[in-house]
């Protein structure tokens, strides 16, 4: 008898080509993410990571293939699936003239929360990212690290099961980076499935349970960090492995 555990996210043969583009941004991508797992999505600029995240988060419609989130097919149950997905975009997607609390309350309200439930969740997330004391200050007065942490908290306010983090540690100091890493660890321990895109190889090595490397819209390799290193014995680090897989040519 097979013990079948349904993955949180199942992506099969995903394809997406932008209008007027000559080549697909994502082609034949297969991914799975289970609860309590962090999948690192690595690749040079233009590899298709952000496009893949955009399609999974329902921002872009899949042109080919199938995506299910907790068994819900995105092509038929998009709105239900949205309720369990949390997206932290690459940009600081926050209103600078609002406070962190106001930002989180607003984005939380778009997930149907209100009143004391919303206030409690906002307070909890602010506490998780270490911003409780400055929660009522305008975001445009924050440092880069504080903005990043607020950006992450806004993705988590509705307690999503599948979390999509698009380069969440860009431009932050060591202290904020550590806090974000710890928070991701807690989310994993809580059973969330996480897709994590980054250019920081050490970060991916230490945080991710599995790593998928993309280039030219395709997944070129996938496995646990130790599996990948074992399969490429000539590479002393994940960064060397990454360069050997994707080449040394500049991409942008």
């Amino acid at each position: 008898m097979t013990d079948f555990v349904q993955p949180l996210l199942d992506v099969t043969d995903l394809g997406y080509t932008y209008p007027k583009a000559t080549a697909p941004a994502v082609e034949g991508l297969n991914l799975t993410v289970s609860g309590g797992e962090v999948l690192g999505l690595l690749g040079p600029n233009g590899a298709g990571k952000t496009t893949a995240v955009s399609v999974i988060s329902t921002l872009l419609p899949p042109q080919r293939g199938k995506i299910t989130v907790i068994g819900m097919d995105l092509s038929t149950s998009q709105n239900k699936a949205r309720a369990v997905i949390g997206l932290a975009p690459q940009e600081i997607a926050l209103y600078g003239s609002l406070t962190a609390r106001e930002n989180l309350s607003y984005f939380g309200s778009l997930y149907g929360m209100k009143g004391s439930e919303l206030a409690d969740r906002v307070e909890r997330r602010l506490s998780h990212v270490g911003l409780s004391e400055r929660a009522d200050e305008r975001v445009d007065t924050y440092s880069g690290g504080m903005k990043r942490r607020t950006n992450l908290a806004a993705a988590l306010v509705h307690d999503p099961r599948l979390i999509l983090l698009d380069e969440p540690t860009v431009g932050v100091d060591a202290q904020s980076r550590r806090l974000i890493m710890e928070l991701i660890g807690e989310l994993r321990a809580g059973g969330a499935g996480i897709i994590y895109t980054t250019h920081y190889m050490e970060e991916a090595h230490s945080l991710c349970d599995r790593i998928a490397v993309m280039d030219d819209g395709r997944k070129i390799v996938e496995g646990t960090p130790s599996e990948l290193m074992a399969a490429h014995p000539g590479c002393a680090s994940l960064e060397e492995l990454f360069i050997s897989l994707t080449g040394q040519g500049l991409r942008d």
Partner: protein
Amino acid sequence: MNGFLSTLAKELKIMSRDRAGLAVLFAMPICLVLIVTMVQDNVMKITGATVARAIFVDQDGGEAARLLRELLDEQDSIETAHELEGKPPTLETAREAVAAGEFLFGVAVVEGTSEKLSRRADELAGSAFSAGSQGGADGAAQDTPQADMAEFVVFFDPASQGALRTSVISALNQAALGIEIEFKTKALSANFQSGLSAIISEQLGEEALAGAGELPSFHWSKDKIAGVRTDELVFVKPSSVQQNVPSWALFGMFFIVVPLSGAIVRERHDGMLRRIIAAPAPTVVVLGGKLAAYSMVAFFQFCVMVLIGIFILPLLGPDGLEIGPSPLAIVLIALAASLAASSYGMLVGSVAKSYEQASVFGAVSVVMAAAIGGVMIPSYAMPPGIRSISHFSPLNWGLEAFLDLFMRGSVTENVYVGGALLISMTILCTLLSWIWLVRNRG
């Protein structure tokens, strides 16, 4: 509903914290309406479309000057001054004051005018009674009077317009005719009995005159028996205030396009829109909340402009704005215009590729729509070609409706059509921006 209300609250918070932006949004139309109204009010003064200030010079001190002064004082459209710096003006000081622009025109009754008028009227009256064999077919006296013709002198501000000059000269001619009739009837009355006596004694002899007893006297009533009544088709007198307040209020409301389109471009570029679209709340509901928030601000702008028209403009010279008998219709058209302006701003923000593109295109398109829509120059004064395209301007839809409500005081077809077009525009722009944003959401 949650997404609608939270977006509405969020947008109002953001706008309330952008005090400089709000100040510009309100200060710009307020300055425009104050400046343009006062400038146009002055233009209307020098063209005679409103009360004109005049200086009256009395060098005569007689009956003619008194009568002319009374006639001028009776004119609602003329405000006559009789002193300069507390002294009666001379012809020279009055000319200087008018040339300096203190008055639009001056009227002088020169020394001896009453005397000349009396003398000439007496001559005419005398010749009328000696005309038994000398009268013409119409009975008019044929003698040429010996006295010089009396004249009133008028002098104008060089900046005054032809229409004003024509109407003042016409009014003075009418006044001169009234004075002439007054002098003539007095002279006729004074000469009636003696003239009649002379005719009877000349024609019938002294005996007949002696036997005639008391001769009839001549009384002439001053009561007017004919006049002109103006049957106004407008509920208030057309004024720069009634025209400019709704016009520039609409212009200011449509300028909400600039901050709104800029806000949407920022949301697209900074990723907030991606968060919004990735959430379960329907994007069109979120856009509805945004539309409602900006429409509330635009409507508030309109209310501020109307209050300025009612309470501030009268303090600066022009008449106050009159709302008329259809305030509800005015509110509904203002709401429709607020929604149309905001929805247009959403569309511009959705389509524009950059903040600069949105702000420049938004501002220029509103200025063009205002120009062809009749905000700057009334559409009836435009060449036929431009007038025909003015009907495509949303500002024209709102303006035509407002002018009917503010000037004619009635809910006309323009009001219904304008309101319907503005609401249709709101629906169309909102749907287009929703489709555009969702299709280009990645």
